[in-house]
Protein backbone atom coordinates (compact mmCIF):
# COMPACT_ATOMS: atom_id res chain seq x y z
CA UNK A 1 0.00 0.00 0.00
CA UNK A 2 2.82 2.36 0.84
CA UNK A 3 4.39 1.55 -2.50
CA UNK A 4 1.16 2.59 -4.21
CA UNK A 5 0.90 5.84 -2.29
CA UNK A 6 4.55 6.58 -2.93
CA UNK A 7 3.90 5.86 -6.59
CA UNK A 8 1.10 8.39 -6.85
CA UNK A 9 3.22 10.92 -5.03
CA UNK A 10 6.17 10.33 -7.33
CA UNK A 11 3.98 10.43 -10.41
CA UNK A 12 2.50 13.80 -9.62
CA UNK A 13 5.81 15.21 -8.56
CA UNK A 14 7.35 14.18 -11.87
CA UNK A 15 4.44 15.54 -13.84
CA UNK A 16 4.02 18.84 -12.08
CA UNK A 17 7.71 19.62 -12.21
CA UNK A 18 7.83 18.76 -15.93
CA UNK A 19 10.72 16.49 -15.11
CA UNK A 20 13.07 16.56 -18.08
CA UNK A 21 13.83 12.88 -18.00
CA UNK A 22 10.15 12.04 -17.94
CA UNK A 23 9.34 14.40 -20.77
CA UNK A 24 12.08 12.91 -22.89
CA UNK A 25 10.73 9.40 -22.37
CA UNK A 26 7.12 10.41 -22.93
CA UNK A 27 8.07 12.36 -26.03
CA UNK A 28 9.87 9.38 -27.52
CA UNK A 29 7.00 7.01 -26.67
CA UNK A 30 4.57 9.29 -28.49
CA UNK A 31 6.81 9.81 -31.48
CA UNK A 32 7.41 6.11 -31.94
CA UNK A 33 3.86 4.94 -31.35
CA UNK A 34 2.16 7.72 -33.28
CA UNK A 35 4.46 7.23 -36.24
CA UNK A 36 3.81 3.51 -36.21
CA UNK A 37 0.12 4.27 -35.89
CA UNK A 38 0.19 6.71 -38.79
CA UNK A 39 1.81 4.14 -41.03
CA UNK A 40 -0.47 1.38 -39.79
CA UNK A 41 -3.50 3.53 -40.58
CA UNK A 42 -2.31 4.39 -44.06
CA UNK A 43 -1.69 0.72 -44.80
CA UNK A 44 -4.24 -1.00 -42.60
CA UNK A 45 -7.43 0.92 -43.35
CA UNK A 46 -7.32 0.49 -47.13
CA UNK A 47 -6.10 -3.09 -46.69
CA UNK A 48 -8.97 -3.97 -44.39
CA UNK A 49 -11.42 -2.17 -46.63
CA UNK A 50 -10.12 -3.95 -49.71
CA UNK A 51 -10.52 -7.32 -48.02
CA UNK A 52 -14.09 -6.40 -47.22
CA UNK A 53 -15.01 -5.22 -50.68
CA UNK A 54 -13.09 -7.21 -53.24
CA UNK A 55 -14.03 -10.80 -53.88
CA UNK A 56 -11.17 -13.07 -54.85
CA UNK A 57 -10.07 -16.61 -54.41
CA UNK A 58 -8.34 -17.12 -51.10
CA UNK A 59 -10.07 -14.21 -49.45
CA UNK A 60 -11.28 -16.43 -46.64
CA UNK A 61 -7.73 -17.60 -46.01
CA UNK A 62 -6.47 -14.02 -46.05
CA UNK A 63 -9.07 -12.98 -43.48
CA UNK A 64 -8.17 -15.87 -41.18
CA UNK A 65 -4.48 -15.02 -41.53
CA UNK A 66 -5.16 -11.39 -40.72
CA UNK A 67 -7.24 -12.21 -37.67
CA UNK A 68 -4.56 -14.59 -36.46
CA UNK A 69 -1.91 -11.91 -36.78
CA UNK A 70 -3.90 -9.72 -34.43
CA UNK A 71 -2.74 -12.01 -31.68
CA UNK A 72 0.96 -11.89 -32.53
CA UNK A 73 2.95 -11.91 -29.33
CA UNK A 74 4.95 -8.67 -29.26
CA UNK A 75 8.11 -10.39 -28.06
CA UNK A 76 8.01 -12.73 -31.06
CA UNK A 77 7.64 -9.82 -33.45
CA UNK A 78 10.51 -8.12 -31.66
CA UNK A 79 12.68 -11.17 -32.08
CA UNK A 80 11.89 -11.47 -35.78
CA UNK A 81 12.55 -7.81 -36.44
CA UNK A 82 15.80 -8.04 -34.48
CA UNK A 83 16.94 -10.99 -36.58
CA UNK A 84 16.10 -9.08 -39.71
CA UNK A 85 17.77 -5.83 -38.69
CA UNK A 86 20.81 -7.33 -36.96
CA UNK A 87 24.10 -6.67 -38.70
CA UNK A 88 24.26 -10.37 -39.32
CA UNK A 89 20.78 -10.35 -40.72
CA UNK A 90 19.40 -9.63 -44.18
CA UNK A 91 18.65 -5.97 -43.54
CA UNK A 92 21.68 -5.29 -41.35
CA UNK A 93 23.09 -2.91 -43.90
CA UNK A 94 20.33 -0.45 -43.10
CA UNK A 95 21.86 0.10 -39.66
CA UNK A 96 18.45 0.46 -38.04
CA UNK A 97 18.91 -1.78 -35.01
CA UNK A 98 18.77 0.02 -31.66
CA UNK A 99 17.23 3.11 -33.19
CA UNK A 100 13.71 4.54 -32.84
CA UNK A 101 13.08 3.57 -36.47
CA UNK A 102 13.46 -0.09 -35.55
CA UNK A 103 10.89 0.41 -32.83
CA UNK A 104 8.53 2.05 -35.28
CA UNK A 105 8.91 -0.89 -37.63
CA UNK A 106 8.22 -3.43 -34.89
CA UNK A 107 5.16 -1.58 -33.65
CA UNK A 108 3.93 -1.08 -37.20
CA UNK A 109 4.03 -4.86 -37.72
CA UNK A 110 2.16 -5.35 -34.48
CA UNK A 111 -0.67 -2.91 -34.94
CA UNK A 112 -1.38 -3.03 -38.67
CA UNK A 113 -3.17 -6.39 -38.39
CA UNK A 114 -5.40 -4.97 -35.67
CA UNK A 115 -6.27 -1.85 -37.61
CA UNK A 116 -6.82 -3.84 -40.81
CA UNK A 117 -8.91 -6.53 -39.19
CA UNK A 118 -11.19 -4.11 -37.38
CA UNK A 119 -11.47 -1.97 -40.49
CA UNK A 120 -12.40 -5.03 -42.49
CA UNK A 121 -15.21 -5.83 -40.11
CA UNK A 122 -16.54 -2.29 -40.12
CA UNK A 123 -16.35 -1.88 -43.88
CA UNK A 124 -17.85 -5.30 -44.53
CA UNK A 125 -20.90 -4.37 -42.47
CA UNK A 126 -21.22 -1.05 -44.23
CA UNK A 127 -20.79 -2.65 -47.64
CA UNK A 128 -23.75 -4.92 -46.97
CA UNK A 129 -25.83 -1.80 -46.48
CA UNK A 130 -24.38 0.23 -49.34
CA UNK A 131 -23.41 -2.20 -52.06
CA UNK A 132 -26.57 -2.32 -54.14
CA UNK A 133 -27.12 1.42 -54.13
CA UNK A 134 -23.49 2.22 -54.92
CA UNK A 135 -23.40 -0.30 -57.75
CA UNK A 136 -26.64 1.12 -59.06
CA UNK A 137 -25.01 4.53 -59.14
CA UNK A 138 -22.22 3.04 -61.19
CA UNK A 139 -19.49 2.69 -58.60
CA UNK A 140 -17.02 -0.12 -59.04
CA UNK A 141 -15.62 -1.79 -55.93
CA UNK A 142 -12.46 0.30 -56.27
CA UNK A 143 -14.42 3.49 -56.55
CA UNK A 144 -16.64 2.55 -53.63
CA UNK A 145 -13.75 1.77 -51.27
CA UNK A 146 -12.70 5.35 -50.46
CA UNK A 147 -16.35 6.30 -50.09
CA UNK A 148 -16.88 3.51 -47.58
CA UNK A 149 -13.73 4.41 -45.66
CA UNK A 150 -14.84 8.00 -45.35
CA UNK A 151 -18.38 7.15 -44.39
CA UNK A 152 -17.19 4.75 -41.71
CA UNK A 153 -14.75 7.24 -40.28
CA UNK A 154 -16.15 7.23 -36.76
CA UNK A 155 -16.02 3.46 -36.41
CA UNK A 156 -12.62 3.42 -38.06
CA UNK A 157 -11.36 5.89 -35.50
CA UNK A 158 -12.14 3.27 -32.89
CA UNK A 159 -10.04 0.77 -34.84
CA UNK A 160 -7.20 3.27 -34.98
CA UNK A 161 -7.43 3.91 -31.24
CA UNK A 162 -7.28 0.18 -30.61
CA UNK A 163 -4.06 0.14 -32.57
CA UNK A 164 -2.68 3.04 -30.58
CA UNK A 165 -3.55 1.34 -27.32
CA UNK A 166 -1.59 -1.70 -28.29
CA UNK A 167 1.40 0.27 -29.49
CA UNK A 168 1.80 2.58 -26.52
CA UNK A 169 1.43 -0.26 -24.04
CA UNK A 170 3.68 -2.91 -25.49
CA UNK A 171 7.20 -3.58 -24.29
CA UNK A 172 8.22 -6.98 -25.68
CA UNK A 173 9.00 -5.79 -29.18
CA UNK A 174 10.53 -2.39 -28.53
CA UNK A 175 12.85 -3.57 -25.82
CA UNK A 176 14.47 -6.12 -28.10
CA UNK A 177 14.81 -4.00 -31.23
CA UNK A 178 15.44 -0.75 -29.41
CA UNK A 179 17.79 -1.99 -26.70
CA UNK A 180 16.31 0.37 -24.09
CA UNK A 181 19.25 2.72 -24.57
CA UNK A 182 19.10 5.74 -22.29
CA UNK A 183 18.09 8.96 -24.13
CA UNK A 184 17.92 7.10 -27.43
CA UNK A 185 15.44 4.23 -27.34
CA UNK A 186 14.03 4.29 -23.85
CA UNK A 187 10.25 4.66 -23.86
CA UNK A 188 7.67 4.53 -21.09
CA UNK A 189 7.15 0.79 -21.12
CA UNK A 190 10.83 -0.11 -21.30
CA UNK A 191 11.59 2.40 -18.55
CA UNK A 192 8.95 0.72 -16.40
CA UNK A 193 10.53 -2.67 -17.09
CA UNK A 194 13.92 -1.28 -16.17
CA UNK A 195 12.82 0.30 -12.89
CA UNK A 196 10.94 -2.85 -11.96
CA UNK A 197 14.01 -4.96 -12.57
CA UNK A 198 16.00 -2.58 -10.40
CA UNK A 199 13.49 -3.01 -7.65
CA UNK A 200 12.38 0.61 -7.75
CA UNK A 201 8.70 -0.27 -7.74
CA UNK A 202 7.32 3.16 -6.78
CA UNK A 203 9.07 4.76 -9.73
CA UNK A 204 7.92 1.98 -12.03
CA UNK A 205 4.35 2.43 -10.84
CA UNK A 206 4.64 6.18 -11.20
CA UNK A 207 5.66 5.79 -14.82
CA UNK A 208 2.75 3.41 -15.23
CA UNK A 209 0.38 6.04 -13.90
CA UNK A 210 1.79 8.57 -16.34
CA UNK A 211 1.29 6.09 -19.17
CA UNK A 212 -2.33 5.59 -18.16
CA UNK A 213 -2.94 9.32 -17.97
CA UNK A 214 -1.43 9.71 -21.41
CA UNK A 215 -3.70 7.01 -22.84
CA UNK A 216 -6.68 8.64 -21.18
CA UNK A 217 -5.80 12.00 -22.69
CA UNK A 218 -5.52 10.57 -26.18
CA UNK A 219 -8.81 8.72 -25.87
CA UNK A 220 -10.50 11.82 -24.53
CA UNK A 221 -9.29 13.87 -27.48
CA UNK A 222 -10.60 11.22 -29.85
CA UNK A 223 -13.91 11.27 -28.05
CA UNK A 224 -14.23 15.01 -28.50
CA UNK A 225 -13.31 14.76 -32.18
CA UNK A 226 -15.94 12.06 -32.64
CA UNK A 227 -18.62 14.15 -30.97
CA UNK A 228 -17.75 17.17 -33.10
CA UNK A 229 -17.76 14.95 -36.16
CA UNK A 230 -21.23 13.73 -35.35
CA UNK A 231 -22.51 17.27 -35.26
CA UNK A 232 -21.06 18.04 -38.65
CA UNK A 233 -22.13 14.88 -40.45
Amino acid at each position, binding site marked *: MTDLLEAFETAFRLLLSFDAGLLEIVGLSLRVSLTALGLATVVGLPLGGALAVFRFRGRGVAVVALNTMMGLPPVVVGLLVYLALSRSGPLGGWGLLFTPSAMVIAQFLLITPIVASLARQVIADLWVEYEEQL*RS*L*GATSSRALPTLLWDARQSLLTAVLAGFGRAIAEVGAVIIVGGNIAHVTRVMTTAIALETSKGDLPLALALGIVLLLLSMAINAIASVLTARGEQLA
Partner: protein
Amino acid sequence: MRASRSILPLRLSGLTWERGGEQLLGPLDLELDGENRVVVLGPNGAGKSLLLRLAHGLIAPSSGSVAWEEPDPRRQRSRQAMVFDRAVLLRRSARANVEYALALRGVAAVERGARTDEVLEQTGLLDLANRAARALSAGEQQRLALARAWALRPEILFLDEPTASLDPAAARRIEQLILQIREAGTAIILTTHDLGLARRIAEEVVFLYRGRVLEHAAASVFFEAPATREARAFLQGDLTW
Protein backbone atom coordinates in the same frame (compact mmCIF):
# COMPACT_ATOMS: atom_id res chain seq x y z
CA MET B 1 -23.05 16.12 -79.14
CA ARG B 2 -23.95 12.88 -80.79
CA ALA B 3 -27.24 11.69 -79.38
CA SER B 4 -26.50 8.34 -77.84
CA ARG B 5 -28.70 5.51 -78.74
CA SER B 6 -31.59 4.83 -76.46
CA ILE B 7 -31.09 1.76 -74.29
CA LEU B 8 -34.75 0.82 -74.58
CA PRO B 9 -36.48 -1.43 -75.28
CA LEU B 10 -35.30 -3.97 -72.71
CA ARG B 11 -35.71 -7.61 -73.63
CA LEU B 12 -35.50 -10.34 -71.00
CA SER B 13 -35.33 -13.77 -72.61
CA GLY B 14 -35.39 -17.14 -70.93
CA LEU B 15 -34.32 -15.50 -67.69
CA THR B 16 -33.87 -17.76 -64.68
CA TRP B 17 -32.30 -17.38 -61.29
CA GLU B 18 -31.46 -20.20 -58.95
CA ARG B 19 -30.25 -20.39 -55.42
CA GLY B 20 -29.46 -23.46 -53.41
CA GLY B 21 -30.77 -25.69 -56.17
CA GLU B 22 -34.12 -23.94 -56.15
CA GLN B 23 -35.30 -21.97 -59.14
CA LEU B 24 -36.68 -18.77 -57.70
CA LEU B 25 -37.35 -16.98 -60.96
CA GLY B 26 -38.14 -18.01 -64.48
CA PRO B 27 -38.07 -19.06 -67.12
CA LEU B 28 -39.20 -15.55 -67.89
CA ASP B 29 -39.63 -13.50 -71.06
CA LEU B 30 -40.53 -9.86 -70.96
CA GLU B 31 -40.19 -6.83 -73.18
CA LEU B 32 -40.34 -3.29 -71.86
CA ASP B 33 -40.30 -0.34 -74.22
CA GLY B 34 -40.69 2.35 -71.59
CA GLU B 35 -43.75 3.93 -73.12
CA ASN B 36 -46.06 3.09 -70.26
CA ARG B 37 -45.59 3.27 -66.53
CA VAL B 38 -45.06 -0.37 -65.57
CA VAL B 39 -45.95 -1.80 -62.17
CA VAL B 40 -44.84 -5.30 -61.22
CA LEU B 41 -47.29 -6.94 -58.84
CA GLY B 42 -47.36 -10.21 -57.01
CA PRO B 43 -47.45 -11.77 -53.58
CA ASN B 44 -44.43 -12.10 -51.31
CA GLY B 45 -41.72 -14.27 -52.75
CA ALA B 46 -43.07 -13.95 -56.27
CA GLY B 47 -39.74 -12.58 -57.41
CA LYS B 48 -40.56 -8.92 -57.98
CA SER B 49 -37.43 -7.54 -56.35
CA LEU B 50 -35.36 -10.21 -58.03
CA LEU B 51 -36.75 -9.25 -61.40
CA LEU B 52 -35.86 -5.61 -60.93
CA ARG B 53 -32.35 -6.40 -59.76
CA LEU B 54 -31.76 -8.73 -62.66
CA ALA B 55 -33.03 -6.15 -65.12
CA HIS B 56 -30.88 -3.41 -63.57
CA GLY B 57 -27.83 -5.64 -63.62
CA LEU B 58 -27.24 -5.89 -59.89
CA ILE B 59 -27.48 -9.66 -60.07
CA ALA B 60 -26.42 -12.01 -62.83
CA PRO B 61 -29.01 -14.46 -64.12
CA SER B 62 -28.43 -18.21 -63.85
CA SER B 63 -29.44 -18.51 -67.49
CA GLY B 64 -31.08 -16.41 -70.14
CA SER B 65 -30.29 -12.85 -71.14
CA VAL B 66 -30.95 -9.25 -70.24
CA ALA B 67 -30.66 -7.38 -73.52
CA TRP B 68 -30.75 -3.63 -73.85
CA GLU B 69 -30.92 -1.89 -77.19
CA GLU B 70 -27.52 -0.30 -76.50
CA PRO B 71 -24.71 -2.88 -76.56
CA ASP B 72 -22.10 -0.94 -74.54
CA PRO B 73 -22.46 -2.02 -70.91
CA ARG B 74 -21.19 1.29 -69.55
CA ARG B 75 -23.76 3.24 -71.49
CA GLN B 76 -26.39 0.76 -70.41
CA ARG B 77 -25.62 1.38 -66.73
CA SER B 78 -25.33 5.12 -67.08
CA ARG B 79 -28.79 5.47 -68.56
CA GLN B 80 -30.48 3.68 -65.65
CA ALA B 81 -31.08 4.45 -61.99
CA MET B 82 -32.70 2.67 -59.09
CA VAL B 83 -34.42 3.61 -55.87
CA PHE B 84 -34.84 1.03 -53.10
CA ASP B 85 -37.42 0.54 -50.39
CA ARG B 86 -35.13 2.32 -47.94
CA ALA B 87 -32.99 5.25 -48.95
CA VAL B 88 -29.29 4.43 -48.74
CA LEU B 89 -27.58 7.75 -48.10
CA LEU B 90 -24.00 8.66 -47.28
CA ARG B 91 -22.92 10.36 -44.09
CA ARG B 92 -22.80 13.79 -45.59
CA SER B 93 -25.20 16.57 -46.47
CA ALA B 94 -28.24 16.10 -48.69
CA ARG B 95 -26.61 18.21 -51.37
CA ALA B 96 -23.36 16.25 -51.13
CA ASN B 97 -25.23 12.99 -51.65
CA VAL B 98 -26.62 14.18 -54.97
CA GLU B 99 -23.30 15.65 -56.04
CA TYR B 100 -21.57 12.38 -55.21
CA ALA B 101 -23.78 10.52 -57.68
CA LEU B 102 -23.14 13.14 -60.33
CA ALA B 103 -19.40 13.00 -59.71
CA LEU B 104 -19.51 9.25 -60.18
CA ARG B 105 -21.04 9.85 -63.58
CA GLY B 106 -18.26 12.24 -64.47
CA VAL B 107 -20.37 15.37 -64.50
CA ALA B 108 -18.22 18.51 -64.29
CA ALA B 109 -18.13 20.37 -60.99
CA VAL B 110 -19.96 23.46 -62.11
CA GLU B 111 -22.76 21.50 -63.70
CA ARG B 112 -23.00 19.30 -60.61
CA GLY B 113 -23.97 22.28 -58.50
CA ALA B 114 -26.57 23.45 -60.96
CA ARG B 115 -28.20 20.08 -61.45
CA THR B 116 -28.22 19.43 -57.72
CA ASP B 117 -29.97 22.69 -57.02
CA GLU B 118 -32.48 21.88 -59.74
CA VAL B 119 -33.51 18.46 -58.43
CA LEU B 120 -33.49 19.57 -54.82
CA GLU B 121 -35.85 22.35 -55.74
CA GLN B 122 -38.08 20.04 -57.75
CA THR B 123 -38.32 17.64 -54.83
CA GLY B 124 -38.86 20.39 -52.29
CA LEU B 125 -35.60 19.73 -50.46
CA LEU B 126 -33.70 22.90 -51.24
CA ASP B 127 -34.12 24.25 -47.70
CA LEU B 128 -32.64 21.05 -46.32
CA ALA B 129 -29.77 20.93 -48.78
CA ASN B 130 -27.05 21.42 -46.17
CA ARG B 131 -28.63 19.24 -43.52
CA ALA B 132 -27.01 15.87 -42.78
CA ALA B 133 -28.82 13.41 -45.04
CA ARG B 134 -29.17 10.87 -42.26
CA ALA B 135 -30.83 13.41 -40.04
CA LEU B 136 -33.77 13.81 -42.44
CA SER B 137 -37.09 12.09 -41.91
CA ALA B 138 -37.86 8.85 -43.77
CA GLY B 139 -40.01 10.68 -46.27
CA GLU B 140 -37.39 13.34 -46.86
CA GLN B 141 -34.70 10.70 -47.25
CA GLN B 142 -36.68 8.84 -49.87
CA ARG B 143 -37.34 12.09 -51.71
CA LEU B 144 -33.61 12.70 -51.62
CA ALA B 145 -32.96 9.25 -53.07
CA LEU B 146 -35.38 10.09 -55.83
CA ALA B 147 -33.75 13.47 -56.37
CA ARG B 148 -30.38 11.79 -56.61
CA ALA B 149 -31.67 9.32 -59.20
CA TRP B 150 -33.41 12.08 -61.13
CA ALA B 151 -30.26 14.23 -61.23
CA LEU B 152 -28.67 11.49 -63.27
CA ARG B 153 -31.34 12.02 -65.98
CA PRO B 154 -31.84 8.31 -66.51
CA GLU B 155 -33.78 6.84 -69.40
CA ILE B 156 -35.35 4.33 -67.09
CA LEU B 157 -35.88 4.39 -63.35
CA PHE B 158 -36.39 1.20 -61.34
CA LEU B 159 -38.18 1.56 -58.00
CA ASP B 160 -38.38 -1.36 -55.56
CA GLU B 161 -41.19 -0.74 -53.09
CA PRO B 162 -40.45 3.00 -52.94
CA THR B 163 -43.21 3.80 -50.45
CA ALA B 164 -42.96 0.69 -48.27
CA SER B 165 -41.52 2.42 -45.20
CA LEU B 166 -43.42 5.69 -45.51
CA ASP B 167 -46.53 7.17 -43.95
CA PRO B 168 -49.43 8.00 -46.35
CA ALA B 169 -48.58 11.69 -46.73
CA ALA B 170 -44.95 11.00 -47.55
CA ALA B 171 -46.03 8.18 -49.86
CA ARG B 172 -48.27 10.56 -51.74
CA ARG B 173 -45.43 13.00 -52.28
CA ILE B 174 -43.26 10.22 -53.68
CA GLU B 175 -46.08 9.20 -55.96
CA GLN B 176 -46.38 12.72 -57.30
CA LEU B 177 -42.66 12.93 -57.88
CA ILE B 178 -42.68 9.66 -59.79
CA LEU B 179 -45.35 11.06 -62.10
CA GLN B 180 -43.30 14.23 -62.54
CA ILE B 181 -40.22 12.23 -63.41
CA ARG B 182 -42.20 10.32 -66.03
CA GLU B 183 -43.47 13.60 -67.46
CA ALA B 184 -39.87 14.75 -67.78
CA GLY B 185 -39.14 11.73 -69.97
CA THR B 186 -37.86 8.89 -67.77
CA ALA B 187 -39.43 5.43 -68.15
CA ILE B 188 -40.78 4.05 -64.90
CA ILE B 189 -40.94 0.49 -63.64
CA LEU B 190 -41.78 -0.15 -60.04
CA THR B 191 -42.84 -2.88 -57.64
CA THR B 192 -45.21 -2.30 -54.77
CA HIS B 193 -47.48 -3.93 -52.24
CA ASP B 194 -49.66 -0.87 -52.16
CA LEU B 195 -52.55 -1.67 -54.50
CA GLY B 196 -53.87 1.86 -54.22
CA LEU B 197 -50.59 3.23 -55.53
CA ALA B 198 -50.57 0.55 -58.21
CA ARG B 199 -54.05 1.41 -59.40
CA ARG B 200 -53.27 5.12 -59.55
CA ILE B 201 -49.91 4.88 -61.23
CA ALA B 202 -49.90 1.82 -63.45
CA GLU B 203 -50.50 2.00 -67.14
CA GLU B 204 -49.19 -1.52 -67.65
CA VAL B 205 -49.09 -4.38 -65.16
CA VAL B 206 -46.79 -7.39 -64.96
CA PHE B 207 -48.20 -9.94 -62.54
CA LEU B 208 -45.65 -12.35 -61.12
CA TYR B 209 -46.41 -15.53 -59.28
CA ARG B 210 -43.78 -17.97 -58.04
CA GLY B 211 -41.18 -16.53 -60.36
CA ARG B 212 -43.23 -16.67 -63.57
CA VAL B 213 -45.12 -13.98 -65.43
CA LEU B 214 -48.75 -15.01 -65.15
CA GLU B 215 -50.20 -11.89 -66.66
CA HIS B 216 -48.88 -8.92 -68.62
CA ALA B 217 -51.57 -6.49 -69.64
CA ALA B 218 -52.75 -2.92 -69.73
CA ALA B 219 -53.57 -1.73 -66.23
CA SER B 220 -57.25 -1.20 -66.88
CA VAL B 221 -57.56 -4.71 -68.25
CA PHE B 222 -55.67 -6.27 -65.36
CA PHE B 223 -57.51 -4.51 -62.60
CA GLU B 224 -61.00 -4.87 -64.04
CA ALA B 225 -60.80 -8.28 -65.61
CA PRO B 226 -57.81 -10.30 -64.43
CA ALA B 227 -57.36 -13.37 -66.56
CA THR B 228 -56.02 -15.84 -64.02
CA ARG B 229 -57.36 -17.30 -60.81
CA GLU B 230 -54.23 -16.27 -58.93
CA ALA B 231 -54.51 -12.64 -60.08
CA ARG B 232 -58.11 -12.50 -59.00
CA ALA B 233 -57.25 -13.94 -55.61
CA PHE B 234 -54.36 -11.52 -55.29
CA LEU B 235 -56.50 -8.49 -56.05
CA GLN B 236 -58.97 -9.59 -53.44
CA GLY B 237 -56.21 -9.92 -50.92
CA ASP B 238 -56.56 -13.70 -50.72
CA LEU B 239 -53.21 -14.62 -52.18
CA THR B 240 -50.46 -14.33 -49.63
CA TRP B 241 -47.66 -16.12 -51.41
